[in-house]
């Protein structure tokens, strides 16, 4: 019984991953860009002039076959890193990405140490 379940699970995961949606959804790119002239809105949400211009440029670049990464690099080179909502993986953002996992690992270690002592009941 157990092995059948495992087989079913694996088959299903493989099946769903093959069909996983990898197309660039234009709107997702818009959501990842910050509107520079608004107070905390993305290009997708903003109704500003700047946002509509950026949308046109992004759509053009997608038609030219540029990848998501290339579009972000292009905009970062023109406007700085502030325009993308996903912080880069480099040395200056090291602590940003590592701290949560550091806490996760430390917490795990603390729990392990706590549980290691066999309680005398």
């Amino acid at each position: 019984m157990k092995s059948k379940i495992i087989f079913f699970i694996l088959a299903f995961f493989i099946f769903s991953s093959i069909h996983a949606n990898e197309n660039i959804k234009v709107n997702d790119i818009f959501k990842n860009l910050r509107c520079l002239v608004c107070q905390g809105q993305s290009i997708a949400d903003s109704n500003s002039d700047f946002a509509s211009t950026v949308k046109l440029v992004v759509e053009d670049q997608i038609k030219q076959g540029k990848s998501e990464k290339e579009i972000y690099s292009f905009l970062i080179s023109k406007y700085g890193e502030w325009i993308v909502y996903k912080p880069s993986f480099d040395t200056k953002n090291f602590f940003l990405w590592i701290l949560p996992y550091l806490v996760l690992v430390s917490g795990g270690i603390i729990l392990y140490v706590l549980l290691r002592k066999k309680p005398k009941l």
Partner: protein
Amino acid sequence: MRVNLTRIIIFGFIFFCLSIFWLGLKKDQTYDTRNLIGNKINEFSIPSLDETNSFSEQYFLNNKFTIVNFFASWCAPCRDEHKYLVELSKNGAHIVGVSFKDKKSNTLDFLNQLGNPYKFIAADNDGKASISFGIYGIPESIIINRESVVVKKIIGPINQEIFKEILNIIK
């Protein structure tokens, strides 16, 4: 001793965080691209206002410094700064005007009224070309050297102070 070390670390860390908050209070929150200089402008092509010609990266090779000024007839601060542009062109500055999301007739009226400081006028009707220059509002003026490198970015209208700065740079 071990306990004391933990305490020192905790106190130190909290003190560090609070100091950062303190310093953060003094900082200016508005973001601008003033400091994005030193990068090269890659290929671009903007049609001229009369549609006979085009403005491309080749243009910069001809002058020591080119000032690219993004403006529009419907933009009030652009009207305010225009006289400084006229002065600059009289002082020998080589200025390219890019009319941003404007109607040709309105742009020509604007220049007839306030003077034409531009050696070349391009028209960016949908605003897309402005993105290549990192523009996010108008007026914005960018000083570019012969090697297509951005030397200075002026966000917002040119005033007396900035006018003097520009003069210093292009001399």
